[in-house]
Structure formats: structure tokens, C-alpha cells
């Protein structure tokens, strides 16, 4: 069994892990749809978007590994960390199924999450194009284009389902209720954010809230849905405090590299 690695606590590394892990874990969740989506076109769409996200994660984790300076690479960071060293927000690790079940996947839950997360990522990537870190800015230049069609795809589905039948609408409402409390952590600044802003690496979390909310409100309006009321609940994925689901995601994602260290295609 391959031992775990631990990245340093450098704030710039932690900032990049938040970004890269968001792409990585959402990609893992979207990949679970491969062969299971309601129609073939959506199966292909979700798998293609997962592929974009893995490519983005690869670029960002490579950069994190370089800044970390302990000789790790993107594969090591993706497959050999322990749960509390993953810094994705909790929203992306929630299972695809209804009410927190792993399977079968709920397509409405997936497209509502994709709409909320890709809208947030769009605001983030657009600002990262101006990062003082040239490598991150270059990754963002490409990712900013890709996230636009991820958001468009998700928004189109939320509108179609939200403004659809009673059944599809109920699924959207339930998904929105379940996901909404997990969006609060996306916009809460901490020392990692402040250090990133000070160094010109990227924006603080709170800066993304207004552009996110404007787009999300536009989507919900078109879908004839309403944003749930704010709640006191706070998830802690960006600080490494994950839900009970994260361990299962990692177990499935890591098993091959842990059992066959350095295994390659």
C-alpha cells in the first residue's frame, strides 16, 4: 500500500489545491454518470465536461506541486493525499443520488449542482486570467472558455427541468434546497484568500459572490425557481473538513494508485 503524501501548508499551495481539487472531485462525480445518464447525448456531454475538468485539475495540481517544492507531481497530489488535505468545497463531493444516496444518480441534482458550481468557477477563472502567476493565468485562459459552455449546458437544463413538468420541477426544487446551504462556504474569506490577493495570485472568495449571484438569479428566474433562504449551516471542505461522503469518493478514486504504486496505462 502506497503511503500518503502531505503538501506543505503554504497559502499559495492551499489556494491552488482549493481550485484544483474542485475540478478533480467534480470530475470524479461527473464521471460516475458514464454509461448511466438518462440519454446517450447527456452521457457524452457529462463525460466530456469531466474530461475538461480533469485537464484543468492536472494543470493546477502540477503548478501546486511545483510551488510546494517537495518533488510531488499532479498524480501524487491527486491520488496520494489523505482526506483532510483535499481542499475542495463540500458541494462538489456530495453524491449524485437523491437525498445523499450514492446511486442511482439524480440528473436534476447533477445539473443544478453544475449550474451553481460552474457559475462560481466562471467568475473565478475569469479573474485568474490576470493572475501574477503566469502559469496559472495561462491555465485560466483556456479554462475560462471551457467553463462557459459547462455553465451554458447546466443552465439550459435547469431552465428546461425547472420550467418543465411537475415531476422535473420538484426534483429541481429538492436539489436546490439540498445544495444551497453548501454555497455559503464558497464566499467566505480566510487567511489563504488574503495571502492570494496580497500576492496577486487570485481573488478572495467574497469577490466572487456578486457575479455568481447575478448569474444564478438569472438562471433561476428563467427556470421559474426561487433561491432558498440562507441558513446557518456551514460546510468546511475548503478548510479540509469534509462530509462523510468524501472518504468514499477518495477510496474509489485512489484504490489503484494505492494498491499498485506508480501504476500507469
Amino acid at each position, binding site marked *: 500500500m502506497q503511503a500518503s503524501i502531505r503538501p506543505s501548508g503554504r497559502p499559495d499551495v492551499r489556494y491552488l489545491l482549493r481550485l484544483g481539487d474542485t475540478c478533480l472531485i467534480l470530475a470524479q462525480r461527473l464521471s460516475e454518470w458514464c454509461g448511466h445518464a438518462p440519454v446517450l447525448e447527456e452521457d457524452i456531454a457529462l463525460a466530456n465536461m469531466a*474530461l475538461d475538468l480533469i485537464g484543468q485539475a492536472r494543470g493546477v495540481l502540477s503548478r501546486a506541486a511545483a510551488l510546494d517544492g517537495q518533488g510531488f507531481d499532479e498524480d501524487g497530489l491527486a491520488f496520494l493525499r489523505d482526506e483532510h488535505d483535499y481542499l475542495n468545497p463540500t458541494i462538489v463531493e456530495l453524491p449524485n443520488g437523491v437525498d445523499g444516496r450514492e446511486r442511482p444518480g439524480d440528473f436534476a441534482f447533477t445539473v443544478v449542482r453544475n449550474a451553481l458550481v460552474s457559475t462560481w468557477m466562471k467568475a473565478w477563472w*475569469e479573474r485568474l486570467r490576470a493572475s501574477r502567476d503566469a502559469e496559472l493565468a495561462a491555465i485560466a*485562459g483556456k479554462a475560462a472558455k471551457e467553463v462557459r459552455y459547462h455553465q451554458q*449546458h447546466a443552465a439550459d437544463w435547469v431552465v428546461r427541468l425547472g420550467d418543465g413538468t411537475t415531476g422535473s420541477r420538484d426534483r429541481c426544487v429538492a436539489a436546490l434546497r439540498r445544495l444551497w446551504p453548501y454555497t455559503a462556504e464558497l464566499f467566505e474569506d480566510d487567511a489563504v484568500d488574503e495571502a492570494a490577493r496580497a500576492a496577486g495570485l487570485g481573488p478572495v472568495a467574497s469577490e466572487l459572490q456578486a457575479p455568481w449571484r447575478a448569474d444564478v438569479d438569472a438562471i433561476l428566474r428563467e427556470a421559474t425557481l426561487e433561491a432558498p433562504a440562507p441558513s446557518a449551516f456551514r460546510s468546511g471542505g475548503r478548510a479540509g473538513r469534509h462530509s462523510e461522503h468524501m472518504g468514499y469518493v477518495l477510496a474509489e478514486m485512489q484504490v489503484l494508485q494505492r494498491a499498485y504504486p506508480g501504476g500507469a496505462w
Partner: protein
Amino acid sequence: MVTASDRVERAWGVLAGVPDPEVPVVSVRDLGIVRDVEDDGGGLRVVLTPTYSGCPATEFIAQAVAAALEGAGLGPARIEMRRSPAWTTDWISAAGREKLRAHGIAPPGPAPGPAPLRFVANRREDVVPCPRCGSRQTERISAFGSTACKALLRCRACGEPFEHFKPL
């Protein structure tokens, strides 16, 4: 005596014959992913820009480019990946677009810039003419096709489905 500029010119010629692994009707040169070729004395330095972040063919293309140049006696070839500026379909050559069309893949229109979110009800999709019969009466079946870079459309005039290389 082969001069450095000869070698670079011959290299561009070789690259025109290296097919893209996912859309083999066009070469890597037609696609515009070869950004620079130079002879730095010790060999050729080739700069490639990947098409999509997650393009699974990126490593394969780098190997194929190096192998083709070395096979043509122009090696050693060092491949460098450059992310910035990001690849855009605007870099696909006119010849490349014609090859796509002749192969039944509608070539991309101009790449869109950053635009506000638009919903189906008030979105004007660009008309994609059918690459077979030229009709403008076409409709999108799926936003993604056999590869991430293509969408699937159908022509209402001739009834044929076809792929569209999406502008990016």
C-alpha cells in the same frame, strides 16, 4: 550543407503530414496547434498549444510530431507545450476548414468572445450550413459529439446527420 532555415522549412512540410489523431482528415499544422518551429543548433524546438485542457490526445500528438521529424532525418526534436495564448478554432487554416467540410464536418465560425449568459428562448444560435448539401436548414441534436470539440447536428433538407467543429 543543410542550413537551419532549410531544416525549419522542411520541418513545417513534415508537420503538414502529421494527422490529428481525433480528426485525422486535418494535420496538426492545419489545426494551428504548432505555434513555432526553430533550429536551436542542437536540434529542432517545436512549440505546441493543446486544444482543450483535457484533450486526451495531447501526449500522443507530441510523440507523433517528434517521431515524424526524427523519421524525416530532422531530429532530435524537442517538444514544448505552451498554454498561453490559449488555442482557438480561429487558428484552423483555410485549407484545414476546407478539408473538414469535404470530410462532412462543418467547420467552426468565428470564436465567440466572453458573452453574458443567454437562455434558449432568447439565444440566437449561429446557422451552421450542412457540409453535404449546403442547406441552412439545420438543427443541433447534441452539444457534444464523438469528441469534445464537435457537436452533432442534422440537416432538415437532405436528412443527413453531421458533425460541427464548435467555435472556441
